[in-house]
């Protein structure tokens, strides 16, 4: 399975017209401006997205159909997906002002190696373990929220 085909089949094709180059298609979806439900246009410049087979969930309210829109915070949504992990390939994305480069796009296929893709880098962590001193700050915050939810 190729990350970019997975991304385009389950998310990218809902946003941009698909050409012959899967990398360019993915890059176009991540850097282009898309119509919002409000009538304005915006890049994927804030919020988060979780892409699974035939199921893309996005926080930013786009006009595109075939996508589920969800108001939860990035931590709530990612914790929920990881707590209900079904062993199916998933792309976790967190957006920011800068576009997410395709080199930072990775699939997660194992809870022991979760990859959260962001414009600034890829946060990798083992969700089955507590964060260590060297864990990414993102995972430390996620873990804190998870513990709070559990208590």
């Amino acid at each position: 399975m190729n990350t970019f085909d997975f991304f385009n089949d389950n998310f990218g094709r809902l946003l941009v017209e698909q050409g012959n180059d899967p990398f360019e298609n993915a890059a176009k979806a991540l850097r282009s401006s898309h119509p919002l439900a409000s009538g304005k246009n915006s890049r994927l410049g804030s919020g988060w997205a979780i892409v699974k087979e035939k199921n893309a969930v996005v926080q930013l309210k786009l006009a595109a159909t075939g996508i589920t829109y969800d108001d939860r915070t990035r931590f709530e949504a990612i914790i929920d997906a990881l707590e209900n992990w079904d062993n199916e390939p998933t792309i976790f994305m967190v957006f920011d002002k800068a576009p997410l480069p395709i080199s930072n796009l990775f699939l997660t296929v194992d809870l022991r190696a979760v990859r959260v893709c962001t414009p600034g880098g890829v946060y990798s962590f083992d969700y089955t373990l507590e964060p260590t001193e060297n864990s990414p700050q993102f995972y430390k915050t996620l873990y804190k929220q998870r513990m709070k939810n559990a208590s």
Partner: protein
Amino acid sequence: MEKLTVTAHMKTPFITGGGYMTFDALLAGILFDQLQDVEAAHASVPIKCTDGLFHASAAMYEPLDQSRVAFVANMRADHSLDADLFPRKKDGTMRKMGRLRRRDFGAVMNSYDSKQVDSLEWHVEGDSEEILKLIEPISFIGKRRASGFGEVHHWSIEASELDGLTGYLNEPLRPIPVERFKGNTDSLKVDAAWRPAYWHPANRAICYAPETPQ
């Protein structure tokens, strides 16, 4: 081709940049410096290769200490960068580069994880003489070599029982695509590059891969 263990005995901490640092990638880098041709460099790696998969493990090491190091590079666009890389104005002329505007120069900070280790070890199946010829002159490996990181004190090569693909417990020693992996399927599964060029997204697949030391 013989089964070998190659060891780099380290003098200074090294920086991987987060990758697996497979031995074929290391040799391909050395060969590219000599040949200046990516395809020729990959074709000349003296390691057994089965349908694109090199029988060469990821770097194995036990970190004694780990620290974060940051470097600040001060860019001077008018003499550090090729002016052809900059976008032209609508009339086709080049915008004059200066030192007054923030976007024309500035400091760029990059930070890395530096690891203090005694040695790095790889299991490979390859030609020991050719491998030794390539690695002997190499005195720095990894990233930030010019800053003194990754200095190798000396190299050693010994006979091994491992083929560079799976270990004693049938665990993966390098990223191997799931459909080609014959070992323990309880191993870690990740989306990773499994053949050179490792930086190219087209060479990524769902693989069984070793756990990288944290």
